């Protein structure tokens, strides 16, 4: 295989990764990392660098549409980013001191349960619950477009969501993967934020969390231009398509896709925990 063929294969896979990543709010790492390492034999460090690029590209590519159409909630995103970025710094500091194998295993099992919990239909009841005083003070309550017009929601359990977001940041600093999953789960299951708002706000946030570690990856020489080029271009196109699909997609269907993707991610994490490699 020469470089042109390699570039073509990676572009097509990245297109799919950008599509799935923007639709679920998870970024494209779940497809990019195993494809590069398992199918194409790329060293894990180059793959991690390429994954970082794919996350930033998915996030910024789809967020333009999500923000303008009123899906992503900028205040929720900004406020929770304090927790995720602080967590990421803490995770990076911890990474040299603890073994990631056990953490992968535990995280995998938690994700497996979350895959089940979040794929079940859930009554979006946040409007019925009435406003939470803290969320109101933080001006987090909002509305988002649905086929029947704008639907408003009241955010609940801010401290619980904030703590989970800190955990999401630690995980991304520690393992380099999975922070998008925790973000969506925290907003959807704990804070009672409508599913489409949760995934698009997660999508809005993951670019910032990933950009925070970009300096480290560049400095270590993990980001290879020949590899990052097809990844970025493929992911951008895929994320634009995903953003168009999400607008009209049924929430129940999106939940099933999300559940499937994090189910696969959970198995990857468990494998990584048991064998010590990804």
């Amino acid at each position: 295989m020469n470089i042109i063929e390699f570039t073509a294969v990676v572009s097509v896979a990245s297109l799919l990764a950008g599509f799935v990543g923007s639709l679920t709010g998870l970024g494209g790492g779940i497809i990019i990392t195993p494809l590069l390492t398992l199918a194409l034999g790329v060293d894990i460090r180059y793959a991690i660098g390429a994954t970082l690029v794919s996350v930033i590209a998915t996030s910024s590519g789809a967020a333009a549409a999500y923000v303008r159409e009123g899906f992503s909630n900028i205040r929720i995103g900004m406020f929770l980013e304090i927790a995720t970025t602080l967590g990421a710094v803490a995770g990076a500091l911890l990474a040299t001191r603890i073994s990631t194998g056990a953490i992968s295993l535990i995280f995998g099992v938690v994700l497996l349960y979350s895959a089940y919990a979040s794929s079940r239909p859930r009554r979006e009841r946040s409007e019925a619950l009435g406003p939470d005083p803290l969320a109101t003070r933080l001006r987090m309550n909002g509305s988002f477009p649905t086929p029947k017009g704008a639907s408003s929601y009241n955010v609940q359990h801010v401290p619980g969501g904030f703590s989970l977001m800190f955990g999401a940041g630690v995980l991304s600093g520690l393992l380099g993967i999975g922070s998008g999953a925790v973000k969506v789960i925290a907003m959807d299951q704990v804070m009672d934020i409508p599913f489409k708002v949760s995934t698009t706000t997660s999508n809005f946030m993951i670019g910032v969390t990933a950009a925070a570690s970009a300096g480290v990856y560049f400095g270590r020489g993990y980001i290879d231009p020949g590899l990052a080029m097809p990844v970025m271009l493929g992911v951008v196109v895929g994320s634009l398509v995903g953003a168009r699909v999400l607008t009209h997609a049924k929430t129940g269907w999106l939940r099933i896709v999300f559940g499937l993707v994090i189910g696969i991610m959970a198995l990857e994490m468990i494998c990584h925990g048991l064998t010590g490699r990804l």
Partner: protein
Amino acid sequence: MNFMQKWTDQYVEELIGNLLQTGVILASAVVLLGGSIYLVRHGLSAPQYHVFMGEPTDLRTLSGIVRDALTLQGRGIIQFGLLLLIATPVARVAFSVAAFAFQRDRLYVVVTLVVLAILLYSLTSGEG
């Protein structure tokens, strides 16, 4: 319409959307240009990613990347495009500080400044 009334949430969302879109289009165009040069020059050789060698110093540092990009080396131009991509979310956070300030939303000016500070800290502490 006075200045503050103009800066509604919707207006801010529109501007942030435009900023992200401009960043992504600009970065993609640069990467595409660099990628074309790279493929024309090296397209027929074999990719070597199974052994990690790390990038050469000129593709790791800001000054090295700019120098390579200015001499029209494909790989240097791609790295420069990737830097633009990484700068996009950072610019978005920086712009949000100003937008919340125009909205007189002090709480979120502080929130966003904290995020920006952590972001810049971890971005720069990585350059080693």
